[in-house]
């Protein structure tokens, strides 16, 4: 993003995007289709890695980095842990899920219809390119001394938002701790009092 190419998206980029998006759709369908939840979690990891590649093609390297680290890395591990706690196989469904299917397809149709109203891909006159983005790109390095514009937008110009994000992450961690940590401590304490474990 900080060294975005000045020329438009080339043909190679187009083919790469098409191939990646086909694989993204395929892994998405496979993740839903597979009965084995372990395999499903792995496929979701691949899905995230493909999305990360897609962000790299779009020059959004910071987002790609986050997607690869969180989506493909930590989330997969957390899903594997959740599967280890519950069960490896998905339960057999009795009824055909027509209503959820119709709802998802209807929502997808509406979203695709909505993309028709969006500015063209890479349009320089799109509202997103004309509002504050030119200001940031022109002034960020002089005002913050940070060459990576993404970092200076996230931490300086939008510092209050990022403080909110960090608070959300903190709250999520505390929430998990309250829901899972406390119960385990009560259950674990009586049989084996661990000396070093100060949970």
């Amino acid at each position, binding site marked *: 993003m900080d060294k975005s190419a000045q020329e438009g998206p080339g043909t190679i980029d187009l083919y790469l995007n098409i191939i990646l998006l086909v694989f993204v759709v395929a892994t998405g369908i496979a993740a839903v289709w597979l009965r084995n939840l372990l395999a499903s979690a792995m496929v979701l990891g691949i899905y995230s890695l493909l999305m990360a590649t897609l962000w790299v093609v779009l020059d959004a*390297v*910071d987002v*790609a*980095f*986050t997607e690869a*680290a*969180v989506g493909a*890395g*930590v989330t997969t*591990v*957390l899903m594997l*842990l*959740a599967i*280890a*706690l519950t069960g490896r196989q998905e339960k057999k469904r009795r009824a055909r899920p027509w209503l959820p299917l119709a709802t998802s397809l209807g929502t997808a149709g509406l979203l695709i219809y909505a993309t028709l109203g969006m500015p063209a891909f890479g349009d320089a006159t799109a509202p997103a390119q004309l509002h504050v983005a030119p200001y940031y790109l022109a002034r960020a390095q*002089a*005002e*913050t*001394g*940070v*060459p*990576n514009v*993404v*970092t*200076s937008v*996230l*931490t*300086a110009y939008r*510092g*209050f938002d*990022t*403080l909110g994000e*960090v*608070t959300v*992450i*903190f709250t*999520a*961690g*505390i929430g*998990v*701790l309250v*829901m*899972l*940590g406390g*119960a*385990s401590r009560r259950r*674990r304490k009586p049989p084996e009092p*661990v000396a*070093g*474990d*100060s*949970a």
Partner: protein
Amino acid sequence: MSDYLVLRVIAKLLIPFILLFGFYVQMHGDYGPGGGFQAGVIVAAAFILYAIVFDVKTAQRVVPMAILVSLACLGVLLYAGVGVANLLYGGLFLEYGVLSHDPAHGNHIGILIIEIGVGTTVAAVMMIIFFSFARRR
């Protein structure tokens, strides 16, 4: 999983480099892709790898839950504390420019400190979530 010799040796070799890469991403986030969020996840991944390959209890002795909770709080406090420090220096909340006589330099300092705060909280919370799940097994 402690019977798998290859996994244990490779993990032991990899973990220092994962940590080093995490710190690189943390401190280099203002020049290249990266920053506190990504660095925090990478540092947490090193400890999670250790816990998976060796033992959750051993990993918990390195980073006990009490320390992780304190670190998670500390990161948010560091971030908000920079904002309060800016108020004391006579600026607005999170207006890092007042930290130094040169506003650009002050902004840079402020960004570095709050990135460390973000990294600390993210790493600690990722490990808190992992260990909360892993301890229940």
